[in-house]
């Protein structure tokens, strides 16, 4: 029983973080067909913003809000500076640009801050543990679950109930038609990057909360996680991305318990091998995205 609870908390907290990561990647992919390699660096930006504000004496929540805001701004700016000028040219050019931009941000952090880990201010809550029905678990896991639930609920609501949300869903299936109804392309794209940045920011704080410090390469692992979860979830479906995040967490957590230490080292090879197989079988991802086919 305690094991089941432990396992559930592990899967839900890891899955919550994964789901948010995947969602942030898919929201941009769905609209622009752009796999944004620089997504992980939004997490990095969050971390360094938090680090730089460490001595400011502001309340932690204010610092966290500023850090998330920085991720949003960076996300939108990346689009303006790097992607917008090449977007019309070719999808490959945009992909290479996003890869280059990711390297640029990482190395800028190496150059201007430091290759060494930097401690970020975290509230005491992040290092405390609680006991629930005999299971001792870090509070930050519960915080992660709560944050994921709240964000996913708000996100789902916004996508269904606000005009902008409906417009974004429409643009993801048929961008040109959406524009032919008067929905401005740039508004949709900037919103997608802003949401992506917001999700990366929140995930960044939760993720860094586990580690306690930030390094230039901090975004790599979340990026890979988001890739896999997205592929599992279907690359064009927002619900799929969320589900993919939780499924991946379930797989990861199970493998942690099941695989021997020897094989555990190859876990990434297994999961990425799985990714390749899934894409071969279904190039659009495991779960179906919104239909593009039209009935006539």
């Amino acid at each position, binding site marked *: 029983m305690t094991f089941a609870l432990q396992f559930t908390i592990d899967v839900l907290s890891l899955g919550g973080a994964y789901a948010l990561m995947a969602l942030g990647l898919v929201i941009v*992919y769905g609209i622009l*067909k752009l*796999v944004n390699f620089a997504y992980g660096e939004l997490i990095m930006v969050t971390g360094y913003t938090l680090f730089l504000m460490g001595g400011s004496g502001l309340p932690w929540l204010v610092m966290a809000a500023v850090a998330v805001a920085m991720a949003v701004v960076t996300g939108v700016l990346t689009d303006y500076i*790097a992607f917008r*000028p*090449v977007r019309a*040219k*070719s*999808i*490959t*050019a945009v*992909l*290479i*640009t996003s*890869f*280059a*931009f990711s*390297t*640029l941000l*990482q*190395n*800028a*952090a*190496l*150059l201007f801050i*430091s*290759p060494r880990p930097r401690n970020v201010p975290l509230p005491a809550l992040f290092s405390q543990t609680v006991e629930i029905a005999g299971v001792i678990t870090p509070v930050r896991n519960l915080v992660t679950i709560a944050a994921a639930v709240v964000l996913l609920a708000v996100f789902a609501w916004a996508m269904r109930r606000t005009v902008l949300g409906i417009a974004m869903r429409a643009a993801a299936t048929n961008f040109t038609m959406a524009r032919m109804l008067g929905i401005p392309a740039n508004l949709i794209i900037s919103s997608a990057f802003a949401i992506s940045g917001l999700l990366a920011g929140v995930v960044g704080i939760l993720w860094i909360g586990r580690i306690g410090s930030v390094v*230039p390469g901090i975004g*790599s692992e979340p990026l*890979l996680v988001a*890739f896999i979860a997205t*592929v599992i979830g279907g*690359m064009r479906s927002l619900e799929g991305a969320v589900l993919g995040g939780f499924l991946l967490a379930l797989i990861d957590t199970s493998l942690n318990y099941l695989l021997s230490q020897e094989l555990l*080292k*190859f876990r*990434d*090879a297994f999961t*990425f*091998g799985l*990714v*390749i197989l899934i*894409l*071969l079988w279904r*190039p*659009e991802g495991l779960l179906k995205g919104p239909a593009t086919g039209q009935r006539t």
Partner: protein
Amino acid sequence: MTRHLLTAAILGGFVILLVACAEMLGIRVFDRIATNLCISLILVLGLQVFMGNSGILSFAHIGFMGVGAYTSAVLTIPLQMKGMALPELYLVFKGVQLSPYLAIPIAGLVAAAVAAALSYPLMRLSDAAAVITSFALLVVLHTVMTNWSNVTNGPRTLFGVPRATDLTLAAGVAIAALLGALAFKESRTGRLLRASRDDEVAAGALGLHIPHLRWRAFVLAALFAGIGGALWGHFITSFSPNAFYLRETFVILGMLVIGGANTVTGAVVGTFIVTGAFEGLRSLEGSLNSAKIFSEQVIGLTEVVLALAMIAVLILRPGGLFPSREIGAIIVRALSKRERST
């Protein structure tokens, strides 16, 4: 035909000129730079063979460089060093010690074989699925290299690889790769593949089996990468799996993108320019560090500049410096134009 020969002669001439300069100068550092340049050139040309002809971005390329490097290392590390360099090596390889000059081509073939076996089904995919799978393949190869300690010594540095690569060898192989890339581009497969790149639907309608064409290019690219990796291993003599990951991918891709992925000329020019710029920036980094102007070590400057250059090229000149015509074709056209005008 003349324009292809002219292209080959001019680009080969660049490499020979480089070797001549290095020999004449006789400075160790320059020799090292020139050798590295030739090895990079082999890798960039390999990537050009696949990307330039198929139009698909591949992230897996550097993974095959790693396969080549480790294969050649396992086959050549001297017997008396094997116990120390690769303590967990499989018994069958314990008694093997080949000449590097034999092991390098074998390494290329092994990389090509691995690519051939893994990649066939992947070639159906285009767009985002193709990019993510090739990226996933790189991660898989990297994870295997990092953890298969029986043949790679795990994440730790593998040392004891005999030094065998010198400038002449690297330059010779680079010229061969150059000819190979040009020949492939003009071969039937290369032409059909380029037709499919420009119009996938029409090429499919002609009954071309595009995945098969792509696969041939991919395997040839892996052959180049494997040989390049082996040469590099025998030059640097010790390395770890991290040498074959995202940073190297970024550098090689940057060279190709800046020069122009669609042409062999672009691959060569990009390699020369980026290597030159890199060495300049690295020495700047070095002198900044030794001058202790900043409290911390200056690192990452070269990558920042390369990334900016890549983005600038993609924005201003998306096809790179040589977007569509080879240097030979450009010269022949210019000459015939002048003839007509006089």
